[in-house]
């Protein structure tokens, strides 16, 4: 597995029972390496979100093997999976999903608090992160007082606060305008290059796909393309 962070073999995921079974993933083989800046693309219903959920242990595969940072997720209990997500995975959601009763600072701090990091260490790290994501001076604002782009920056700060091995971002730019989307991508790319944070984000947006170092295209629960994002011609050919 080399320097891989996530490793999937023959992963399938079915939803429903009896005659009504939806096969969301149909035998996925995938390895994500440390430092990857990868995008998962594909039409709606192609299995992008299911793939991210299975990778993070939020959902269990129907069959196959999933390993994160050397640990077999299919063998872990719910509590162990929670602990693994808390320490090894950061999440960025399409709808930001910040806690409305917490300020920007407290939202970014929340995961560290759950980890039991002492208050002084939390303060130093979170203030630095808010500065890094361009929200210096806005730490006391509640989510309702921030724009969509600013909320997503807080979400990114929250995701990287615990220095996880992997950040999974589900359509992180879908709810912001193109200028903000570009700024968010700049930020994620900067974190990837400067801090070595591994990113895997799902997207519909071709401009976003073009920024990824690696593109994984899903069609009907199968990997239709896995390669450099720069060769969109190949992708187009595949689509054709």
């Amino acid at each position, binding site marked *: 597995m080399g320097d891989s962070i996530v490793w999937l073999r023959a992963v399938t995921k079915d939803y429903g029972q009896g005659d009504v079974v939806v096969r969301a993933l149909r035998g996925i083989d995938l390895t994500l390496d440390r430092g990857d800046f990868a995008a998962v693309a594909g039409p709606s219903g192609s299995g992008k979100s299911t793939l991210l*959920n299975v990778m*993070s242990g*939020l*959902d269990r595969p129907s069959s196959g093997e999933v390993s994160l940072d050397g640990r077999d997720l299919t063998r872990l209990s*719910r*509590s162990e999976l*929670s*602990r*693994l*997500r*808390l*320490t090894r*995975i950061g*999440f960025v*959601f399409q709808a930001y*999903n910040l*806690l*409305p*009763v*917490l300020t920007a600072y*407290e939202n970014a*701090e*929340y*995961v560290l*608090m*759950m980890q039991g990091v002492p208050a002084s260490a939390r303060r130093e790290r979170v203030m630095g992160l808010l500065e890094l994501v361009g929200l210096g001076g806005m730490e006391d604002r509640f989510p309702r007082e921030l724009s969509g782009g600013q909320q997503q920056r807080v979400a990114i700060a*929250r995701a990287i606060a615990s220095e996880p091995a992997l950040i999974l971002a589900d359509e992180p730019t879908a709810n912001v305008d193109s200028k903000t989307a570009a700024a968010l991508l700049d930020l994620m790319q900067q974190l990837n290059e400067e801090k070595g944070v591994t990113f895997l984000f799902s997207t519909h947006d071709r401009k976003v796909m073009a920024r990824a170092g690696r593109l994984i295209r899903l069609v009907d629960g199968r990997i239709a393309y896995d390669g450099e994002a720069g060769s969109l011609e190949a992708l187009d050919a595949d689509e054709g």
Partner: protein
Amino acid sequence: MGTLRIAWRSIWRNGRRTAITVAAVGMSTLIMVVTFGLMDGMRIDMVHNVTHLVLGDVQVHATGYRADQSFYKAVPEPEAILDAARAAGVHAAPRAYGYGLVSVGHKSAGARFWGVEPAAERAAFDLAGKLAQGSFLSDSAEASRASRELVLGRKLARSLHAELGSEIIAVVQAADGSLGNELFTVVGILVSCGEDMDRSAAIIHARDFELLFVSGGRIHEIALNARGTVSPERVAARLEAAVTGKAELEEKKPEKEAGGVDIETWRELNPALSDMERLFGASMWLFSLIFFLAAGLGVMNTMLMATFERIREFGVLKALGSTPWRILRDVATESFVLGLFASLLGAVLGAACNLYLAHAGIDLSRYGDVFVEGVAFSPIWRAAASVEGIAAPSAVMVVVCVLAALYPAAKAARLDPVRAMTHV
């Protein structure tokens, strides 16, 4: 960022709903605090009226006296017991009892004569002040003897048609078998002090009793009253240690019989009252169940609503790594904060009501004398504003709020994160 602070902010997301729940829980707490205060006031009044009137915290009799009330079963070495009481800083009143006939004109009735030391009674008990008419006996034996003073129970005086100044002929069988008789003058008539005393008490000076009954200084009872400074059990333990010469054992219940005397606390002397007093506490908690249940259901409803509104949020928290236990704890903490706030509010208002009711009381005099099981209650019903009476129902209310949140909390904790995050 503390868990309590997050919980405080969370419960105020829906301010109106939380305000209604706080009002309901606070009101329940207030009602319970006030009711506890009033009932505790009644209980204390009841015990006080009985123990401080004549019963005392502890009584000493010759072994077996209470069973047959034999005139000849006198307390051996009463001075030693009185000395022990004095050493322990406890008031003690020696008494002698005898039965006889009292007559005024052509009216006569059976009576129980009490031979008392008026000064000791005055110091130890409230009896000397419980007079509807007249005054209590003079402290000095000579003065009492000169005026042939006698104090009558209320109903006994009525049945004899006796008034202040009435001359009473007492006829008794003396200890030596002779017939004792004496003429007394009524100097006082007691207020209602309980059925037995009202119907039969004829109280005279100990010296007069000795002469009437030729009792040879017999003492049948020594009643001790610490007036709340020491518990009855401790008083009994000290006495027993003094009588037997053994070291006082704080926790051990004293032997009933020690050195030829029975040493009994008021609970043993009046088990019916003791049971009633204990029943007061139990019935209060039973009554409280209704309020706890109502408040608990209100809190459960609030927390269920809050949980349903935040399904997505709980999904996100689980995705971020929150364990089911942590979510359960967070929801329970919110309920704890809500319950604590509401209970404190209710407790403060309830304490204010109790302080007022402890001071002003509720006037029951229009209903006449109130007796329950022969125990007289004060005409003004006052609340007891004790810390325990306020803290106990308030604390239980907080616990009820937390327990009521466990069901919604468990529901939140069991949510599937993927489904929860896509919940609409």
